[in-house]
């Protein structure tokens, strides 16, 4: 009997431990009618290792790509940009052919020499990219990346549950919103919100400014019900929170589920981010990678992709194809340009430490 208990307990322990680290990168590979190794795809280019977050492409698009080119797509996923960079570093820029990640981490990846310069001859559709999303800090010459979706930090609220009119970040501090605000758990975004209110830049290296923003943020604590990155829109839809600061894809999902929700572009300033595709420097199948990037840039393919992921469409040629239902969510509002929005970039180690300290204090205060 004792042995059984011992066995059972150790099994339980092992299971418990495993459950904690729940990264499930199982590669949902997409092998369509694989036998037809099409002419363009040489034996060497018969495969493509795609590495990005889960759910970045509709299955039909990947299947159609395989059917047309004969290139089999092996989709593996990461949960955070940092995991991706660590893996790419270990693989010395190999193993993967196309990676899609966030702007700031790509800047680091390029600086570490892990990214291959694009051969634009092989990407005839390069011109389809909306120039608004090009030439940004992470790739000023557009030499390494092709944008794949963009988003801005947005406030969403449910007018049925909120008594006030919200049009700025400052309104979230209103006492009537006690214990009903949901925010993302990205501290650069949230501390940045308080920085913006003080008229500072997201990317200030001034520790005193960050600490002042932290003090402001502490006053928000009684209103915060939830801090969460993934699927914050679910809590908005279920009524768990009545106002929230979220990413564009979450806004799209929330508003599709409940059209009564109000979307607010905070008056203090707009923060925005770009996701982009790049080819690691030692990619095993660079030709397939270029072919894939070009394929995704086709207007009709882009349309499918962006309607699926719910981010702002970065392909200018696809804009007009996007259906009415999605258009308000997938195209940037009039008058928004890279000049009046700000991107979150890497800051000094000192500033980063101030950010984490401020954030930990804030989170603790929210739980009190």
């Amino acid at each position, binding site marked *: *009997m004792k042995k059984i208990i011992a066995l059972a307990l150790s099994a339980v322990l092992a299971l418990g431990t495993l459950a904690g680290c729940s990264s499930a990168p199982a590669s949902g590979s997409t092998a369509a009618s694989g036998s037809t190794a099409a002419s363009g795809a040489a034996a060497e280019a018969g495969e493509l290792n795609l590495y990005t977050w889960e759910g970045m492409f509709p299955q039909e698009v990947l299947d159609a790509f395989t059917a047309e080119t004969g290139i089999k797509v092996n989709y593996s996923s990461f949960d955070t940009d940092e995991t991706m960079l660590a893996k790419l570093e270990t693989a010395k820029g190999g193993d993967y052919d196309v990676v899609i990640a966030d702007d700031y981490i790509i800047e680091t990846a390029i600086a570490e020499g892990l990214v291959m310069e694009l051969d634009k001859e092989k990407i005839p559709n390069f011109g389809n990219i909306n120039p608004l999303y090009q030439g940004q800090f992470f790739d000023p010459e557009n030499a390494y990346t092709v944008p794949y979706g963009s988003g801005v930090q947005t406030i969403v609220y449910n007018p049925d549950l909120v008594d006030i009119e919200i049009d700025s970040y400052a309104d979230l501090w209103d006492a009537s919103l006690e214990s009903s605000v949901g925010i993302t758990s990205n*501290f650069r975004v949230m501390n940045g919100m308080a920085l913006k209110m003080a008229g500072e830049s997201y990317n200030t290296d001034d520790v005193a400014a960050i600490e002042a923003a932290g003090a402001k943020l502490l006053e928000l604590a009684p209103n915060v019900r939830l801090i969460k990155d993934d699927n914050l829109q679910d809590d908005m839809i279920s009524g768990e929170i009545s106002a929230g600061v979220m990413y564009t894809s979450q806004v799209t999902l929330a508003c599709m589920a409940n059209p009564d929700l109000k979307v607010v572009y905070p008056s203090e300033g707009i923060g925005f981010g770009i996701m982009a595709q790049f080819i690691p420097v030692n990619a095993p199948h660079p030709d397939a990678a270029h072919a894939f990037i070009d394929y995704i840039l086709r207007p009709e393919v882009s349309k499918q992709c962006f309607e699926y992921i719910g981010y702002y469409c970065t392909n200018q040629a696809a804009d007009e194809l996007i259906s009415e239902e999605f258009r308000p969510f997938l195209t940037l509002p009039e008058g928004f340009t890279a000049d009046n929005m700000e991107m979150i970039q890497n800051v000094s180690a000192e500033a980063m430490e101030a950010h984490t300290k401020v954030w930990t204090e804030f989170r603790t205060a929210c*739980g009190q």
Partner: protein
Amino acid sequence: MKTPSVPLKKKKRSSVWVTLIPLYLFTLLFVAGPLVYMFVLSFQTRAEVWGVVNQFTLDNYKNILQPVYLNTFVESFKLAITSTLLICAIGYPFGYFMAKLSPAWKKRVMLLLMIPFWTSSLIRLYGWIIIFRANGTLDKLLMGLGLTDSPLKLLYTYPAVVVGMVYALLQFMILAVYSSAEKMDWSLVEAARDLGATPLKAFLTVTLKLTLPGLLSGVILTFIPSMGLFFIADILGGNKVVLVGSLIQDQLMKAHNWPFAAALSVVLMILTSLMISLYKRITHTTELEGIL
């Protein structure tokens, strides 16, 4: 590692050592290796944006002494103690009465205890979200019974976190108490009763004493994991209860400050090791009841 003092006179003996080598290698490589790496890392300096610079510093440990970070240790202890006390209160009687069941029922109860583990603990946590959320199962039940008239905000609160912790760790306590109550000689209790002890006195002087090792190992088995189960606090508490584990994850994945994360882990491990040695001191045992 000590070399055996007895000379290896028989061939048999040396062949045993050969078969053990893979085990030692495995342990060295996958247990000791990462620990040493983490220990070394905790004395290094973070690079400006990404990675680590090989430069000795004690700053990572000094950093922990800042009130905001020390507080995460306090929070972790507070939560661990709260949940362990509740688990004792529920798990001890459960294990005790389970040991008194007939053999057939013992097996059935054991099976029922094990079945939840066939599902990932994360999925089971999401089950609690469905119960706790606004207009969820519990709200509907309470409102249906007329006890409350509007949805309570139960999810993303401290009690929700405690419930999640108790739920996740209760089995360890039950099984530990059960295993020591099961092998107890019940005739001792009868003897105490024959000699005039009241049931309560017999329980306190005989049963409790004999099952104490089980209870204490149950405490260890629940207290230590609850120091680390930060994902429960994150999911059911809405990221508002900052435990050490959660801080380590933040430092590692978001702040890119690996040395600080390593220093936090080292301190956490030292604290938990102290707990275990304290347990050994109190109970004079070298093994955890219910495990070996």
